[in-house]
Structure formats: C-alpha cells, structure tokens
C-alpha cells in the first residue's frame, strides 16, 4: 500500500534530477574527438613569409598551443590581448591557425593588435580546420610532447581559463 505512493514519488524525483541536470548542460557543446589522440598532421605556409612552412612535428618534444583565429572573427578580438600576454610571459609557443581568411587582412590584424604567434599558418580553405574538428572560431588546443592533443577550448579564452587550466597543463613535465 505504501509502495503505491512511494513509486510515483521516486519516479518524479528521478525525472526531476535528470531534467535538472539537463538544465546545467550546454546543448551546443560538442565534445572533441581529438582529446588524447595524436594531433592531425598538416603542412601549411607561414603567413607573410613566402616559402616557409610549418608542420606540427616541428614542435615535437615540447608542449605548445594551437589557436584557431580569423580576422573576420569578432570574439577573437576579446581573446587577442590574452594571447599577447601569454606570448610575453613566454609560457609555450603559440601557433596561430588562420582559418579561412585573407592573407592581407590577417597580416593587418597582427600588425594592429600585436603578434602573439610563434608562427601564424594559413589554412585558407579550412581543410586543416576540418581535420582538427574545428566548428567555430576561435578554438584553442594544447598539444603535448608526444604530439597528442590534451586540451581543447571552444570560444574565446579568458584569463581565468589560462591561469587555472592552460598554464598548469603547459608547465607540467616541461
């Protein structure tokens, strides 16, 4: 007899917990498939340096950052000063993947706002971005000594994120 009242209550509570948990999740967040897997290889030309190219293998043996950006990307403006500060602090090399942009506009952007990049590489048709699973610019990855992706952030990075999550990863085992 008592069970008759307890079962609907339990059913309601479990549903409430399930839906409540759902409210705290971001339905647009797509987990990266690249975490803990080897970073997709590529060879791309370096912006404003004709004849020079960059491959992720060039940085093997150290931890580095891949930052996907574009001059047409509005939220890249917010994270750019933070990238400049990271570069000034000399934490790790930051490679800028210039995603589906025009070289002239990208170069102008770096001239105006400062160039935090160890190397800015040109992904004009966005195919390398697709290999890395880039959905929306900006996105930031951390790659470890062995060439595996160990961290990904979608959207502009914040100072809090850099201090609490990125720097500990970049300075570990280094």
């Amino acid at each position, binding site marked *: 007899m008592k069970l008759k009242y307890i079962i609907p209550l339990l059913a309601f509570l479990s549903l409430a917990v399930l839906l409540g948990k759902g409210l705290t999740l971001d339905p*647009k967040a*797509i987990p990266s*498939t690249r975490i803990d897997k080897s970073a997709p290889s590529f060879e791309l030309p370096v912006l404003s340096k004709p004849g020079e190219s960059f491959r992720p293998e060039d940085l093997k043996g150290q931890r580095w950052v891949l930052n996907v950006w574009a001059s047409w990307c509005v939220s890249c403006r917010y994270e750019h000063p933070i990238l400049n500060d990271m570069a000034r602090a000399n934490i790790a090399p930051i490679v800028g993947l210039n995603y589906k942009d025009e070289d002239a506009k990208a170069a102008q952007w770096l001239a105006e706002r400062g160039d935090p990049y160890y190397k800015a590489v040109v992904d004009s048709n*966005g195919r390398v971005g*697709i290999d*890395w*699973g880039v959905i929306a610019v900006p996105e930031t990855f951390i790659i470890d000594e062995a060439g595996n992706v160990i961290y990904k952030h979608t959207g502009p990075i914040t100072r809090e994120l850099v201090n609490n999550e990125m720097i500990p990863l970049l300075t570990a085992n280094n």
Partner: protein
Amino acid sequence: MKHALLTAGLLFALIAFQSNGFTAIEAVVFDNTSHEKRYKKLINELRCLVCQNQNLAGSDAPLAKDLREITANMIKQGTSDSEIKEFMRSRYGDFVLYEPPFNVSTAFLWLSPFALLIIVVTGLLFNIKRRQQDELFKPTHATNNAEQVRVRNLMRDTPSLNSKDSNKPER
C-alpha cells in the same frame, strides 16, 4: 470574401517563395545517378555543426558547404558511405550523425523505451491479476446458495459495484 481571397493568395505566394529559398544550395554535378542518390541521402543524414538542428542539406553555414563539398568529392573518388560517416565521426563525434550509433553512452537512449514498455506491461498484468483475485468480484467464494444471493444483492444495491446502477442520482 474578397479580402479573404487576397490574404490566402498572398499567404500562398509567401509560402511558395520561402520554400524556393530553402533549396538554394550549390548544385553538384555527378556523372552517375547512384552517386547523386547517395550524396542526397548522406547530406540529409549528416548534421550541421554550426547551426545545430539542421542537416548539411539544409544549412547555409560555410562549414556545412565545405562538408558537402568533401562528401561529394569522397563519393566521386569511390569512398563508401560508412567510410564517409567515419570521416565525419572521427572529427566531430557521434553528434554529426542524426542516427546515433549504439554504444555505452547511447545505451540508455536506445534501451529506455523498451525498459519503459516492460515496466508498463508488467504493471498492467499485475493490476489485471489483482482485480481478478479481488474478493468482491468473486461471488462464488460464498460457501452456500444463501450467501451467494446475499453477495449478488449487495453488489446490485451498491452503486459503485454495479455499472447498471452507477448512474442513478440517489446517494
């Protein structure tokens, strides 16, 4: 009447115009109709990552356009449908597939309807059995004729137990 006709006409034009706009994705030329069929099927089954809740076929996003182009090129190069889906899945995860594959994280999604069905059917059977065993519905439980008559009379005189009497206004 005139107004209604005019409104209906405008509305119809609006709908016709809108559906025209929807099909405006770039045309892809295939030299073989089976390739074209596969392409149309795949871009309908693959999800756009930018404007989520749209498939690749219905999205104007630049990324969706690139992924359509990749899909078309892979088909032309003789790549199978499952290899194309794996190409997308390895980059964007299960999310890119409108029909999620069965694995540990989707087990609940796939199995919960069946679990629910089992729970409901078991509950229903249990309930039916309990009703059948209900003392009041078993006048034969009475040991002799006189008791059986009494039970029947009781059932007839109690509105809630006899459907024929249940709508009488008295009591």
